[in-house]
């Protein structure tokens, strides 16, 4: 058993910011990351971020990852990073177990921050398991991180921001996007993204869903169908589109498995993406000294994940005896930033979800 102060599970935007905060406060930190590099999903995001300057607005996602990683450099004496390492267990007695190159390791921590992020949802339709059908984020990883094209002709399911942004990035990489289909009667994402795509001649078909995929061992065709006002299929409105790639962008689910394993209290809140841990105002779960931040506690943008991370790192460090000299000022500032990010019409879903989460804590 290896003893640690603070273990942070996940080196994405939330985990990295949490690390920085905790390190600034004086804590010793171990980051455990499953992937070969830090940065989470930022490393594949070639678009510029929205928001305000404090959350790196107008900076491209992969550059933000670079900044967040660089910010940890001054603390390297107190920071340990395990890459290519999967956390396989989180237990009630603060034991974290990992697997790296077939080697199993046990850690014990005074405090733990779970920043595991989210996974892409799947959609049920006939032949949805054919190779050539991917999560939209998977295609973004493939082309932006590894420089590999997913195929020649793509159909995108879902017109939320991820669906719209990945469609645009597919075009930037030289792939033909044949259509974006959306089951709802209106486009889900920001108008600025949708307009950019429409101007390039890609149809965004609302009230339309996928009926079936066709192909032998890999995708060849996609059958789509229109929906009426009651979300029922309109008979005879089927259309076949030739495509070797289908991207599914129908939302994300928080990666709650480790929390569930430790029997931490969970609640199901649709607005936050599904199963999320019940938390206090300081992002502490039902298990004392286990904190959460980022998409694992509700699907939002990376901007809010970073601020949540900064806040949680500050608090977790304080809990184990490392109080940042400007603790109160910083805590207050992060809370204000989060409120600002969640204001406006696009933050409505988060606000409703988080209100329900608050109620669950007192129940």
């Amino acid at each position: 058993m290896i003893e640690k102060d603070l273990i942070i599970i996940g080196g994405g935007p939330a985990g990295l910011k949490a690390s920085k905060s905790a390190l600034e406060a004086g804590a010793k930190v171990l980051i455990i990351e499953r992937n070969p590099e830090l940065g989470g999903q930022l490393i594949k995001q070639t678009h510029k971020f929205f928001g305000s300057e404090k959350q790196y607005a107008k900076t491209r996602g992969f550059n933000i990852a670079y900044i967040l990683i660089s910010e940890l450099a001054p603390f390297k004496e107190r920071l340990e990073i395990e890459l290519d390492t999967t956390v396989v267990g989180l237990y009630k007695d603060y034991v974290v177990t990992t697997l790296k190159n077939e080697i199993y390791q046990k850690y014990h921590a005074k405090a733990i921050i779970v920043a595991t992020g989210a996974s892409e949802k799947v959609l049920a339709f006939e032949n949805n398991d054919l190779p050539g059908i991917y999560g939209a984020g998977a295609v973004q990883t493939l082309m932006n991180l590894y420089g590999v094209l997913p195929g020649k002709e793509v159909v995108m399911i879902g017109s939320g921001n991820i669906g719209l942004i990945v469609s645009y990035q597919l075009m930037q990489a030289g792939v033909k996007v044949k259509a974006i289909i959306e089951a709802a009667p209106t486009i889900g994402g920001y108008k600025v993204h949708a307009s950019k795509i429409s101007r390039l001649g890609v149809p965004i078909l609302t009230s339309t869903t996928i009926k079936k995929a066709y192909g032998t061992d890999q995708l060849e065709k996609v059958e789509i169908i229109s929906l009426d006002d009651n979300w029922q299929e309109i008979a005879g409105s089927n259309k076949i589109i030739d495509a070797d790639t289908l991207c599914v962008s129908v939302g994300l689910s928080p990666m709650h498995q480790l929390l569930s394993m430790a029997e931490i209290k969970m609640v199901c809140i649709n607005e936050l993406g599904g199963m999320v841990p019940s938390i206090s105002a300081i992002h502490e779960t039902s298990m004392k000294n286990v904190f959460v931040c980022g998409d694992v506690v509700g699907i939002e943008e990376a901007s809010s994940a970073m601020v949540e991370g900064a806040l949680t790192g500050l608090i977790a460090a304080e809990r184990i005896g490392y109080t940042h000299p400007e603790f109160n000022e910083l805590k207050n500032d992060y809370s204000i930033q989060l409120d600002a990010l969640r204001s406006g019409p696009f933050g409505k879903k988060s606000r409703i979800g988080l209100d329900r989460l608050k109620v669950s804590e007192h129940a």
Partner: protein
Amino acid sequence: MRVKRHPIIEAKEQSEIRFFYNEEEVIGYQGDTIASALHALGFKVLSRSIQEHRARGFYCAIGNCGSCHMIVNNVPNVKTCITKLEPGMVVMTQKDLGKII
């Protein structure tokens, strides 16, 4: 197929990595994962489902879903989407649950 020209991402000259896919010698590039190298070569089928033997490719590309499992250097259930390609790797299509060595 690889991205040829891109308005944002700078192309980097990468060195070749030779490896084996189902006993055939093939080429990937430095920085590739096993799955990205195979995809670039046009191999989208990574495994077969256990009951129905349906073709399986990757779905998430970040190590979540387990749809990219292959046998790598005799070890089954390797997540090929997050495993970096190394010279001489022997990569095989997985068709069963995999045996614990």
